[in-house]
């Protein structure tokens, strides 16, 4: 499960006097520096005085306050937050029990469910979007944040269920069996024993769903029409199309949409793992 931190402990013993350490450091440094150029560009341009500015300061927050003043950035930020947070909450609430069934059930039906999840995962979102657009038009869910929230939960469901199942696989069944002996029901075992001990799995699923909905562009561009209902990616793109010249303002908007996922990941990365997906896909 712990993709990022597993090997740390075992490496302590070889820490001293390894001549390769600094070479590896140098290689990693160079590669990371090249890889991060596009990210660095956004940060640097956003924090430097724009072409219309007379300021010669090295760093400025003028671009940031400028785009907050002159665009609907606050509205877009609010829309993105509302959609994303509800998506995460609903996705976890739906995926956790399904993950439990996938993790504990051992029969043909569960294999069938697992295959269904896999096929659904491979269906292109674009194929689903066109019929959903027609359906949602009848239900007045086009141009609605609620409508795109439903789709985000749907498209992230497969991976979310796999992630929950993968984590729950690491919780011994004997814990539930003990609870059953003490008179707990199947649901009681799931709720009190497995779910209570699944916080890392829940966080992993939440981070994944968060990234899906926060970063989405395709669903939003198909379904959202009104500017006041734009999510951040749509806002950024529209703003970019209208302001191709003034990179400082464009990048200031970009940094607003980039910062939350980066901060969330910086704080919670130790809980995040995609490695378990492999296990639950292959059926252990």
């Amino acid at each position, binding site marked *: 499960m712990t993709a990022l931190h597993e090997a740390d402990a075992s490496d302590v013993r070889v820490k001293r006097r390894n001549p390769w350490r600094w070479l590896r450091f140098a290689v990693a440094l160079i590669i990371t520096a090249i890889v991060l150029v596009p990210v660095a560009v956004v940060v640097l341009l956003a924090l430097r005085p724009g072409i219309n500015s007379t300021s010669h300061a090295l760093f400025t927050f003028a671009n940031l306050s400028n785009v907050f003043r002159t665009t609907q950035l606050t509205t877009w930020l609010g829309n993105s937050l509302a959609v994303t947070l509800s998506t995460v909450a609903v996705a976890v609430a739906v995926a956790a029990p399904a993950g439990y069934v996938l993790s504990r059930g051992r029969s043909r039906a569960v294999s069938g469910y697992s295959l269904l999840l896999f096929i659904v995962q491979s269906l292109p979102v674009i*194929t689903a979007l066109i019929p959903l657009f027609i359906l949602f038009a009848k239900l007045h869910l086009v141009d609605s944040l609620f409508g795109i929230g439903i789709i985000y939960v749907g498209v992230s469901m497969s991976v979310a269920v796999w992630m929950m199942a993968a984590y729950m696989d690491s919780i011994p069944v004997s814990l539930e069996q003990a609870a059953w002996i003490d008179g707990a029901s199947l649901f009681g075992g799931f709720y009190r024993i497995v779910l209570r001990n699944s916080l890392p799995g829940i966080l992993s699923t939440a981070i994944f769903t968060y990234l899906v909905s926060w970063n989405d562009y395709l669903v939003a561009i198909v379904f959202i029409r009104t500017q006041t209902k734009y999510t951040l990616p749509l806002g950024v793109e529209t703003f970019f199309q209208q302001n191709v010249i003034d990179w400082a303002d464009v990048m200031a908007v970009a940094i607003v949409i980039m910062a939350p996922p980066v901060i969330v990941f910086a704080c919670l990365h130790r809980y995040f793992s995609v490695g378990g997906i492999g296990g639950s896909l292959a059926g252990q």
Partner: protein
Amino acid sequence: MTSAAGTATQPAAATTPPRKGRAARRFDVNRMTMLGLVAPSVLLLLVVNAYPFVDAAIESVHNGSLIGSGSFVGFDNYRSILTSGEFWQAAEFTLIFTVVGVFGSWAVGLGMALLLRADFPGRGLFKVLLLLPWIVPVVVSATAMNYLVATPSSPVPSLFHALGLGTPLFLANPTWARVTVCVYKVWISFPFMMLMSSAALAGVDESVYEAAKMDGAGAIQQFRHITLPIIARPTYISWILMIIFCVNDFPTIYLLTGGGPVSATTTLVVLAYRTVFGNFLVGPGVAIAFLMTLTLVVVSVVLYRQIRKAAFQ
């Protein structure tokens, strides 16, 4: 799905110790519980994923619009797209984009995972920093890429010019645009492959390498004959997932090139999107998406069965 999910509970019921009441009743309660736990996700999958898939099949044999379902036209939509050069060009680039995306990101991701497995100063920080391309929203990185390469006076073309390599038009020349889009996709995707590879490598027992060293195996031999076979299964899974991610990818291409210049970087997804929401030809657009979906489902189910077979052996 309903009856199928019901029988899923048999093992759980079997491991549940007898409680008060008759066995049959307990079995039913557990079965209903399991059904209840899985039901919301099944409902969602049916509405958001399965229903549109069926509806897409129906739309693809009609000449409808976004507001009306139109009349039945048989396989006319399929005939028209299969005979259009645009479709085959998009299919070709989808294949190139997917192959480069999958193997490029795998090679870089595995390489970085191997590098980060050994100990060196600041390793933990590098692990997090290298995930950034995957975490940063595509809208943001596409904007940054535009700044870096879009015009002849952008930083990267200027660098090429300064190095005496000419001034390639990274987004305006069809070949260069394809290269740029593929490189950009590898940049976005390698962190995912790095995470998958790291997880796979963490399961490899170090003592195997000690034994191989005793037998005089070099680093390359160790990699080929120990590392690769051990991580084979997780690797196949990561390839399948990445194939799906690449074929279905829309924003990477659309936000960087819009599918141009002259359709050079148009993939099937972009073509389907443009056909439906640009030209308002719902039937043909859905037919493109549906053909793509069928191919993808067949390919991934075949690969998936292969893995499960390997897993149970």
